[in-house]
C-alpha cells in the first residue's frame, strides 16, 4: 500500500511516498507554498492509497484534496516520528522552520517527552535569516559561506525582526565587515535557539530539521556558538515522512 505524507508548511510543501509493506521510501518532492502551487497540488503529488497531512495547512488542504479519511496530525508528532525513522538514536530535534522554531525531546522509545515552540515572534526562525540575508544582498547559502569567515561576529541585540533590520543597517553604515555582520546574525539566531532549548541537558548532537538543514556548512556556525547539530539528507522531509508513518500502525 502506498502512503503519501504531505507536509504543508508556511514556506514550502514537502511530500514523501512510502510503501508500507516494504518500509521503503519511493519518492519525495518539495515546492514553494505559493497560491499557484497550492491550487494545483492534486496534479503535483503522486497517486496514493492513503494520505497523512501535517504542517500549517493541514486542516485547510484537507478540503481541497477531498481524500477519503486522511489522517491529520500536528507537525510536532510527525517530525518526531519521521526523525525517529531516519535517525533512531537521536533524542533531540531542532526544526528551524519558515515561521517557527521547534525543539523536541524524545525518550528511548521515541515518545515525545517535551517540546517547545518559539512564541509568535519570527526572530529566530528561518524567515528571520532569509530577511537578514536579503538586507545584506546575499543569497542564503552565500550568507552562510561568508559568515564562516568572520573572526569577530557583530552584536545584534534586538529581539524583534524589524528592529534587528535597522540594527543591521546601522552596522553596515558604520562599516562593519559583512562577514562579521553575517556571523552576528547567525549568533543571534543561535542564542535565541539556545534560550528555547533552555536548561535541557544534551550530550549528543541535535538533529537539525527544516530548511536550514539543507545549507552547507551550517553545522560549523552552530558549533562555533556552542550548539552541536547534525544533519541527515532526509532532514527536510521528517514532517512528511512522519505524516505517512502515522498511517502505518
Amino acid at each position, binding site marked *: 500500500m502506498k502512503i503519501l505524507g504531505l507536509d504543508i508548511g508556511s514556506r514550502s510543501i514537502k511530500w514523501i511516498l512510502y510503501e508500507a509493506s516494504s518500509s521503503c521510501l519511493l519518492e519525495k518532492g518539495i515546492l514553494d507554498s505559493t497560491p499557484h502551487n497550492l491550487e494545483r497540488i492534486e496534479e503535483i503529488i503522486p497517486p496514493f492509497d492513503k494520505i497523512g497531512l501535517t504542517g500549517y495547512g493541514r486542516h485547510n488542504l484537507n478540503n481541497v484534496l477531498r481524500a477519503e479519511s486522511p489522517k491529520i496530525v500536528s*507537525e*510536532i*508528532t510527525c517530525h518526531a516520528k519521521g526523525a525517529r525513522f531516519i535517525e533512531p538514536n537521536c533524542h533531540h530535534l531542532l526544526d528551524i522552520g519558515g515561521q517557527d522554531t521547534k525543539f523536541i525531546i524524545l525518550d528511548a522509545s521515541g515518545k*515525545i517527552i517535551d517540546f517547545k515552540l518559539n512564541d*509568535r515572534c519570527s526572530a529566530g526562525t528561518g524567515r528571520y535569516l532569509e530577511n537578514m540575508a536579503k538586507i545584506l544582498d546575499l543569497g542564503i547559502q552565500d550568507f552562510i559561506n561568508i559568515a564562516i569567515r568572520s573572526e569577530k561576529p557583530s552584536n545584534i541585540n534586538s529581539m524583534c525582526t524589524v528592529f534587528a533590520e535597522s540594527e543591521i543597517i546601522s552596522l553596515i553604515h558604520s562599516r562593519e565587515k559583512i562577514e562579521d555582520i553575517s556571523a552576528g546574525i547567525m549568533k543571534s539566531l543561535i542564542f535565541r535557539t539556545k534560550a528555547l532549548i533552555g536548561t535541557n541537558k544534551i550530550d549528543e548532537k541535535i538533529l537539525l530539521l527544516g530548511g536550514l538543514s539543507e545549507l552547507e556548512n551550517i553545522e560549523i556556525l552552530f558549533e562555533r556558538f556552542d550548539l552541536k547539530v547534525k544533519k541527515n539528507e532526509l532532514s527536510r522531509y521528517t514532517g512528511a515522512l512522519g505524516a505517512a508513518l502515522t498511517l502505518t500502525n
Partner: protein
Amino acid sequence: MMDNTKMYKSLGIDLDAHDTLMGALPELFKECFLNKEQDLKGLSYFYSVVADIHGARVKELIEHKNKGPVIGSFCIYVPEEIILAACGQLVGLCAGADFWVPYGEQIVPKNLCPLIKAGIGAKYSRTCPYFQVVDLLIGENTCDGKKKAWEIFSDMVEMYVMDMPNKKSELGLKLWQEEVKNLCNFLEKKFSKSISFDSLLDAIQKVNAKRSALNRLYETRKNSPTPISGIDALLVTQIGFYDDIERYTKMVNALAQECEEKVLSNFKNNGRKRILVTGSPMVVPNWKIHHVIETSGADVVVEENCTGTRYFKDNVSIENASSKGDLLKNISDRYINNINCACFSPNRGREEDILKLCKDYKCDGIVYVSLSFCTTYMVEAERIRKVAKENSIPMMTVESDYSFSDLGQLRTRIEAFIENL
C-alpha cells in the same frame, strides 16, 4: 421599556465604536458554541444571556439603581456578600475582548496583561455598558499591574481599593480581616445603607447557594464522558460574574440536574483525553484555549482558575456566628484561606488544589495557560511543572493574549500535546 440605543446614549456609550465591537461577537460565538454538538436544554438560558449581553441585563442593572448601587470588580477577592448586603449588585467586569486592547495601550504600556489593558480600554473607549453603569469600582492590590491601574481608573470612575497581603500569615490574615470590615463600613456610609446581621446572613446564603450550584455542576464533569463540554461550563461560570444571583443559581441547578440525568442515561466512554486547564482567569469572551483544545479531540473537564473552581470551591461558614462581626470574619477567612491566587507567596495551596483536581477529575494532562505578561502566573508555572512531573502528569504551558494571531501555533502545540498523551 427603553430601546437599546436610547439606553446606550443615557450611559454615554460611544455608539459607533460599540457597533464595531458588537459586530464581531456573533461570529465568535457561533464559531465557539453554535458550531458544535450540544444536547443540553439548560444551556439555552446561558446562550441567550450572551446573545443579549449588552441588552436585558444592563437594563436590569439600570433599574436596580433605584434600589441600590451597581458595583464593579476585577477579582474574585472582592466579597460579593457585602455588596449584596448593602443592596448592591456586583458585576465582575469582563475584559476579555481583544477589541479593547488597543484603546488600553493608548494609556498604559504594551507589556501589561491583556486583562488590564482591555479593562482600561473598555472604560476609556466607552463601549462597555457594564463599565458605564457602575457607580463604583472596587479594586484590590493583587498584582502590580492592577495596583497601578486603579490610579488610572480613578480618573474615569469612582474607585475604592482593598489592600491585599502578599503572604497568608497571621498578619496577612489580620490585614485582610480589617480590609473586609473597612469595605463594609465604607459601603454603609457611602450608600447610606446599614448592613445588619440579618442582611449579611441573607447575602451569605445567596452567594453560598450560587457556589453550591456551580459545585454541583462541576461535580458532573467528573464523569467520563463529561456531560457538558468545557467551553460550555466555562461560559456558565463566566456568566455568574454578572447575572442576577437568584435567577442564575436556579438556572445552574437546573442545568446541573440535566447533566446528572444525562450521566445516568447514556454512559459510554468516548475515549477523549481529559484536560485540566489552570492559570490566569478567562473572562468573557475569551474562549480561545477551550475552543482549540476541544476541537483538537480532548475535553476540558475542569478549570483551576478564577473563572473555574477558585470562584466557588468553598462556602462562607455561618455556623456559630452570632454577630455581624463573626460573619465578616467568616467572609474574610473564606476568601483569604481558600483562594489560591499566584499573587501570594508562597502559594503551595494551589499545587495541592491542582493535584487533587487532577485526581478527582481523572485528568490525563494539564494545560497551563497564562495571559501574556501575567508575571505571577507565568513564573509560578515552573513550580507547577515540577509538581506535575513528580506526579507523572503531563503538562504544557501556553502564554497567550486575546488576539487570534497565534491560533495556528496554538493549535499545533495543543494538538501535539494531546496526540502524545
